[in-house]
């Protein structure tokens, strides 16, 4: 199981701030997770499609599409940050 978290415009587009998903075993990277979500979850798929650029964090640390995932990971997806 992977816990997804969404923030800012992406959260508004998804309509939830979190979602638990259980991708198949062969999904082991962020990139694969997102490709799988695009097929499995139309809401997340269209929210991501509507967000020109987004960032990812795994267990509260910035990651990249190539980052590997383990069951129980918290994967956050969000638009580029705009603090400060």
């Amino acid at each position, binding site marked *: 199981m992977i816990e997804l*978290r969404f*923030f*800012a*415009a992406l959260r508004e587009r998804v309509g939830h701030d979190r979602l638990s998903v259980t991708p198949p075993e062969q999904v082991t990277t962020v990139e694969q997770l997102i490709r799988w979500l695009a097929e499995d979850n139309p809401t997340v798929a269209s929210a991501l499609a509507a967000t020109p*650029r987004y960032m990812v*964090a795994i267990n*509260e*640390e*910035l990651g990249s599409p190539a980052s590997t995932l383990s069951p129980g990971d918290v994967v*956050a997806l*969000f*638009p*580029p*940050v*705009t*603090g*400060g």
Partner: protein
Amino acid sequence: MKRHIEICERPLASAAPASWLHDAGLSGAQVQFCGQVRDEQGQVQALHLEHYPGMTERVLRAIVAQAGEKWPLNGAWVVHRIGTITAGDDIVQVAVSASHRQDAFQACAFIMDLLKTRAPFWKKELIGGHWQWVEARECDAEAAAAWLQQASVHEP
């Protein structure tokens, strides 16, 4: 190096970083950055800031630790406001103390540049009665990348 990192829902006190950093003769230099909400000629009526609790503090701690490795600092202060605020309000304070001013200037600019591109905060603005998300600026990403390139040049 002493450090203070805080996410704050109340207005920021502008004198707080200087008095917290004060060390009675150890440091010769304090540099303080303060970011404020611009009203863009009266267009921006309010600003709302959200963040990723937990990750935010973790990222800020990592940025401050990295600054402490690159420059000999005596203290570092980062306080970031969240919630709904208005034009002219302070959003963020970054302040550092060091023996020499060049170290303090560089460390303060470095922390701000990395905060801007790595700390999970998002702003939306109330303009003409409508809330809209602020877009990330390309030049902020470039400013952060410049520091990281510098670092890689020094690596063996």
